[in-house]
């Protein structure tokens, strides 16, 4: 079979698709990854053949900054809001719709070239990142099944809807109408690597998959693997926060200082340019420029992060207790899942003392570590991508 994987871009949405794409490939199927040219390097680093489709003309840096600005200036949202969208305020719905329109614009910018590519390449199946709507359109245009691929608890959101649902945004409808095909909101299956106890919203036609971390290629940095004398805590703030200059990174600077002040070693996993903005750092702090998180966390006793899907799942797969400092509604929800599963703490930043106290509790209470080990075992008991790929292929063969 030929299987087309589609992404609108950004690492958090490319990375999660990679294990399933490798699984189809090593089962003998032909695979293409399709996404915008801006992400060609990230696509090439997966080792998979890829197609560059569309630019991002409709998604200017201004639009992106506007969405990010709205994202990082929200007051805290209820931790379980994705399960109760109907109870949100009109203002909160408006925020969700603005994010949805941003994602639809990203889809609109690539869908024509994606359809043209797919008509040439004739895939038998389209697997699309759950926020990469162009993939759902192309499957309908070609009349082939579509599999929605989630990337963690946050990706279960239905941002293509006019909130609070159930009808789609007019812009989303237009994506389908320009090709004269019916508007589709569902998929033939939803592959989700979120472990059940971390999941808040169960997607329809769920196909559970084990989370296998892929955070780009690379190697474990020197000096991490020897026995450590003091506890070591990793600090990272993810790719979306890094883009959102508006939010700054200072809650994480506070966390770094708190870790150092408590006599622990601190590892910063962030691009060098980001780390440079932090100013002079305590001596026990080490900045790693480009190491995949899953090759660093096995040598850490805790992690402080921004509450992204990929970071939370990578830490969960490594059984590392987590402190989430959320700054957006999405991160509030992911932080809520970390608390609900017992593997860590979530605190919105207010004072340095709050962060310092959370760091201390994370490392001193063994319950977080015990629950983290339990959650890792839960992840490891799910069907691996190899099994999911063969199940999806069998479903197709049986019509």
């Amino acid at each position: 079979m030929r299987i087309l994987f589609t992404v609108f871009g950004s690492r958090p949405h490319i990375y999660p698709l990679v294990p399933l794409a490798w699984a189809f490939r090593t089962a003998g199927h032909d695979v293409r990854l399709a996404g915008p040219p801006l992400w060609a390097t990230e696509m090439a680093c997966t080792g998979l053949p890829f197609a560059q489709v569309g630019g991002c003309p409709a998604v200017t840096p201004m639009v992106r900054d506007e969405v990010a600005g709205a994202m990082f200036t929200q007051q805290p949202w209820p931790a379980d809001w994705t399960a109760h969208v109907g109870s949100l305020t009109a203002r909160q719905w408006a925020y969700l719709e603005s994010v949805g329109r941003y994602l639809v614009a990203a889809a609109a910018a690539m869908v024509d070239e994606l359809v043209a590519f797919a008509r040439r390449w004739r895939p038998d199946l389209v697997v699309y990142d759950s926020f990469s709507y162009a993939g759902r359109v192309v499957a309908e245009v070609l009349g082939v099944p579509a599999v929605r691929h989630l990337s963690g608890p946050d990706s279960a959101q239905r941002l293509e809807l006019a909130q609070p649902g159930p009808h789609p945004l007019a812009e989303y409808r237009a994506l389908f109408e320009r090709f004269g095909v019916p508007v589709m909101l569902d998929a033939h299956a939803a592959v989700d690597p979120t472990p059940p106890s971390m999941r808040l919203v169960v997607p329809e036609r769920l196909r559970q998959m084990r989370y296998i971390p892929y955070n780009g290629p690379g190697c474990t940095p020197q000096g991490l693997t020897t026995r450590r004398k003091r506890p070591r805590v990793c600090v990272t703030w993810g790719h979306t926060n890094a883009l959102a200059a508006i939010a700054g990174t200072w809650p994480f600077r506070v966390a770094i200082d708190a870790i150092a002040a408590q006599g622990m070693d601190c590892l910063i996993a962030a691009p060098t340019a980001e780390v440079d903005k932090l100013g002079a750092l305590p001596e026990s702090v080490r900045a790693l420029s480009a190491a995949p998180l899953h090759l660093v966390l096995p040598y850490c006793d805790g992690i402080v992060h921004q509450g992204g899907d990929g970071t939370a799942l990578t830490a969960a797969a490594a059984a590392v207790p987590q402190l989430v400092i959320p700054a957006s509604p999405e991160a509030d929800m992911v932080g809520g899942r970390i608390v609900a599963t017992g593997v860590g703490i979530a605190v919105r930043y207010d004072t340095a003392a709050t962060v310092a106290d959370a760091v201390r509790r994370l490392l001193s209470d063994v319950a977080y570590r015990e629950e983290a080990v339990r959650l890792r075992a839960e992840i490891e008991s799910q069907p691996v991508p190899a099994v999911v790929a063969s199940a999806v292929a069998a479903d197709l063969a049986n019509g």
Partner: protein
Amino acid sequence: MRVLVAVAGGQSHLFPLVPLAWAFRVSGHDVRLAGTMRSAEAMAHTGLSTVTVGSGLKMTRAEREELLSTAYGQPPWPPAWPVHPQRLTSGQNRYLAGFGRYSVAVADAMASDLVAFTKHWRPDLIVHDTLALGARIAATLTGVPCVRYTHGTQDVFRVEDYAPAEHAALFHRFGLRTPTTPPSCVDTMPPSMFIGAERPCVDMRWIVHNGPGTAPPLSAKRPRVCVTWAAAGNPYRRAVEAAATAGADVLTLTAADQVPLHLVLPYCDAVVHHGGEGTGMTAAAMGVPQLVITREPLDDQFGGRLARTGAAIHLTDSRDTAAAVEKLLSDPGYQEAAVRLREDIERQPTPLDVVPRLLG
């Protein structure tokens, strides 16, 4: 479980191992790809987690050129030479011994680091290419099972037979005797390419992997012939001219183009190449008829194997190129045989099937 995949050779050794390494990963195992500093960039483009072992064999430009000119300056060897090694001339045996010594030197340059990493990381299995002999040393020292991946060469090139003294010295350096049993092997050669020199091994389907990349904009109108030659130098001008004379479009592809062969071949009716396993197996797996013009002993036997299937014409003299290209494009028998060869390959167990067999 933890699986260490060690590669001493360049891209031609790395690429065929990638699907198996991915298969371990998507089956839930932890994988490390080990290679020299020189392979770092190519390794990064597999998406796998990597570890650098050694900086690679240092050769002067003159040494490298001499090695290549010896390899590609051989008069044609009989294609079935691996079946009758006793019939080789003393010059041919000298050539194999020289290649054996070179292979041991390549292995030696990464062996110490590989042993150190194995002792530290404690893999449950080591898979290595034909040149990464240090993997077998590391496996013996740590008691870890080890399997040699021969990427379609069917274990023809046996360093231990060609340079026994140097091979033994390498093992001795780590306090070990030369192994008395042949290594366990995984190989991707389909049965229709066997010539009777094969050793038992775990069969695996050849999954095409030529690195990441995008297909150039091509469409299928006239017949199209792809001409490629890797490091073999370029005796293929005749092929380019012959294809043009036959009314076909010609697409030349070199390593510098950075275009994966398998993204081009779906738009080609035939491929002309030097007889490398990566190129030949890629074309075979995609059902494309081949003209194989070989100038090196290992390529000679590989070209012979492809010709046996009926999907290829094998030449050791490029003077016959024009007639061969014409025949390849006009006789539908080659296309039919190419489809049979592809089906033969597709019947083999996939890398995903092989994973549980290797981890037993």
